[in-house]
């Protein structure tokens, strides 16, 4: 079979996992990595799962590798922080069958809270790393990474970036090669990481790195393209494509696809005879520092020029236009047009989003500090709600709220209360341990779990609360209220967030308590494909529409404070776009003149 297909990098990685005979894959959703596991889950030969978080995903994949099957885990860059603990030690033991981990980084931070360069993890954990530059390489490198993992008894890291994940290019499909299950044989010296064993492994890791250094200099993934030029370009990942657009045939290239350990010998050879070398890499100057170490600092243009001034931007994407500007020193002439005619289009909570009613009420409370989290509900920070004081990483809403409340309470007479707000999936991810901290350490922060019955922001992945697995099988529905009570919270209320009066009363109730409390808002995401369970629980959800009774509307614009994209003002009266409205009635409840009809509370 020889068939070329246009694929995103994520689809190609999934295809590589399939063709490599992998039998187990786990992940937690996170842009830009989500579609990798989504695609893997469509292959019935692979047991694919959404894990509650990245650490669990990697540990499960590691376990499956020890158990004897080729295994795989994928995550976004910040997800590897969560999974860093097992990652570093698995690097010592290696698995039994091949184990490959994907980190999807975000130069430019299209959908992320930071721009960390996870290539640093390869060096830090001493794990070999590939950096594919297009979809074809995504598949080829993923497949080969399993071979390498088994040959060198090490997990292998594949680092991709948003543009690799979400760009399409041609990939040649091949058949899946089934792999026999490697029998598990007890080997406590290898797998039990007590210091005595880990010290032995530690020495082995260095031997492995020595062998991989030789491999790096001689492998097909790292190669020189000699165009007889005096200018050279060293690049890895997507950056090589950007560089080729700029330099074309006017430069020699050292393309680095296997980037840890670096091919130092090959780099040295490449530098010979060059008068100028550009190092093109997104995020941190990792290749650049290696080139400098080889003594080529005088001809090196990377994040810094030889005179120590900044050259290529230190952050953001290094697309061809960005490179061209740095290399030529010429600005791209801006077009002459009236830019005041462009209004920003920030993301907003959808029409009918069940978070809306809650944030509308929360934003009105001046007695509260709100500690937010990662998900759609982060949009509660924006106007018109302005209902968030901080947000950092998954789970930090609850633990952070605990800390803030404790600090505030150190001032005598403090009346400010702190609310931690997070979603169902984020609660499962890392909110549970944070809530345990509040209970155990006698905190009294208020926790709100916005349970919209799905992992929303990343495009609707199943989670332990939904009743379905990644591959669509029915499974146990984990009860959030039960978890909360089991963790030791005595004050728990489950409410409908579209009922504004109930939201107000419940917030009042929580604030009145001296002990910690949990409010669970329970209503399905408006974009969710409703499951049978959802249809049973909410038979009437999203079936109606609201309408303005124009004669009653006084044009006070109070309804606009709902921040709903379906409502606006036309001819000095409120107007509801019927194609968008799903009848959540938040605007109806806000209206002081009862000028909105329809929908159900």
């Amino acid at each position, binding site marked *: 079979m020889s068939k070329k297909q246009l694929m995103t990098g994520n689809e190609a990685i999934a295809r590589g996992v399939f063709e490599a005979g992998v039998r187990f894959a786990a992940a937690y959703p996170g842009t830009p990595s989500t579609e990798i596991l989504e695609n893997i889950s469509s292959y019935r030969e692979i047991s694919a799962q959404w894990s509650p978080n990245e650490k669990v995903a990697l540990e499960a994949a590691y376990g499956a590798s020890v158990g004897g099957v080729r295994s795989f885990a994928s995550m976004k860059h910040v997800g590897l922080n969560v999974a860093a603990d097992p990652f570093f030690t698995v690097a010592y033991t290696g698995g039994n069958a091949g184990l490959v981990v994907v980190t999807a980084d975000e130069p430019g931070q299209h959908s992320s809270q930071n721009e960390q360069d996870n290539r640093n993890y390869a060096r830090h954990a001493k794990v070999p790393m590939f950096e594919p530059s297009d979809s074809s390489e995504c598949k080829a490198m993923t497949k080969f990474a399993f071979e390498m993992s088994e040959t060198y008894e090490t997990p292998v890291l594949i680092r991709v970036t948003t543009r690799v994940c979400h*760009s*399409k290019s041609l990939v040649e499909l091949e058949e899946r090669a089934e792999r026999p299950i490697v029998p598990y044989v007890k080997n406590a010296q290898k797998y039990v990481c007590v210091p005595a064993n880990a010290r032995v492994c530690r020495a082995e890791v260095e031997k492995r790195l020595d062998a991989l250094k030789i491999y790096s200099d001689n492998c097909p993934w790292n190669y020189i393209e000699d165009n007889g030029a005096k200018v050279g370009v060293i690049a890895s990942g997507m950056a090589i494509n950007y560089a080729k*657009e700029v330099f074309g045939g006017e430069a020699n290239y050292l393309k680095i696809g296997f980037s840890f350990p670096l091919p130092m010998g090959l780099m040295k050879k490449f530098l010979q005879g060059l008068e100028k070398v550009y190092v093109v890499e997104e995020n941190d100057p990792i290749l650049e520092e290696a080139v400098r170490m080889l003594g080529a600092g005088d001809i090196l243009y990377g994040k810094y020029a030889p005179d120590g001034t900044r050259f290529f931007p230190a952050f953001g994407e290094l697309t*061809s236009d960005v490179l061209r500007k740095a290399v030529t020193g010429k600005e791209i002439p801006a077009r002459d*047009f009236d830019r005041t005619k462009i209004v920003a289009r920030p993301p907003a909570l959808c029409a009918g989003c069940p978070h809306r009613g809650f944030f509308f009420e929360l934003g009105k409370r001046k007695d509260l500090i709100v500690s937010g989290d990662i998900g759609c509900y982060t949009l509660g920070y924006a106007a018109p709600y302005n209902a968030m004081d901080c947000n950092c990483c998954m789970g930090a809403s609850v633990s952070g709220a605990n800390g803030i409340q404790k600090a505030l309470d150190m001032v005598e007479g403090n009346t400010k209360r702190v609310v931690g707000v997070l979603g169902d999936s984020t609660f499962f991810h890392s909110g549970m341990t944070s809530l345990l901290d509040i209970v155990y350490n006698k905190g009294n922060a208020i926790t709100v779990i916005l349970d919209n019955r799905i992992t929303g922001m990343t495009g609707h992945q199943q989670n332990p609360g939904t009743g379905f697995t990644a591959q669509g099988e029915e499974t146990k529905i984990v009860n959030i209220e039960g978890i909360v009570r089991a963790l030791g919270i005595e004050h728990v209320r489950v409410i409908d967030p579209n009922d504004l009066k109930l939201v107000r009363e419940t917030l009042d109730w929580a604030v009145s308590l001296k002990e910690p409390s949990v409010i669970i808002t329970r209503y399905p995401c408006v974009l969710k494909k409703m499951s049978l369970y959802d249809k049973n629980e909410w038979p009437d959800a999203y079936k109606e529409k609201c309408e303005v009774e124009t004669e009653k509307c006084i044009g006070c614009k109070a309804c606009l404070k709902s921040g709903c994209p379906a409502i*606006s003002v036309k001819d000095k009266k409120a107007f509801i776009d019927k194609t968008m409205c799903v009848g959540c009635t938040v605007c109806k409840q806000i209206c002081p003149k009862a000028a909105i009809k329809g929908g159900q509370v």
Partner: protein
Amino acid sequence: MTKNILLVGVGGQGTILASKILTLGLQKANYDVKMSEIHGMSQRGGSVTSHIRYSKEKVFSPVIELGQADVLVAFEKMEALRYLDYLKEGGKVFVNDFEIPGIPITSGQTEYPKGILEELKRCADTTVIEADKEAEKIGNSKVMNMILLGTIIGSMHLTEIDWDTILSENVKPQFLELNKLAIRRGIELAR
């Protein structure tokens, strides 16, 4: 010579399907094709862009440079202005005469800007397409995206490609004829 097509719009307008059909057609015509999308926040009403680059030779970057798009197709008119810096000198703009106000506008902080089409026409070779109305004429406003795809096919002289077959492999049978008609109408409008 690599050709660059930039599709811009708002989440939910069907830019992703339109660019998928386009890339499949280009692949069938033996072009090397690369496509890049940024759609992380699109479901929440943000703007969406699809970069498509193709050539008979190898295409490296999937991302169009500023000032290099041969065609800018805007599914929403304000988005045309937002990405106008991508258009090359002499490039063409096809703009859907269609407004989607964002939150700053619906919430009353500001108004939807007036005179966008005039401004586009003043500074670029602009064709205004009433894709909304054209789609209604065909019988379903949802094929707006295929009308706009048709304008790309027409303006980039890609009519020789067998779009009907590609459509039949990618849209539901009951919508096939509608989509075919829409592409044909778009091609006519681009003339």
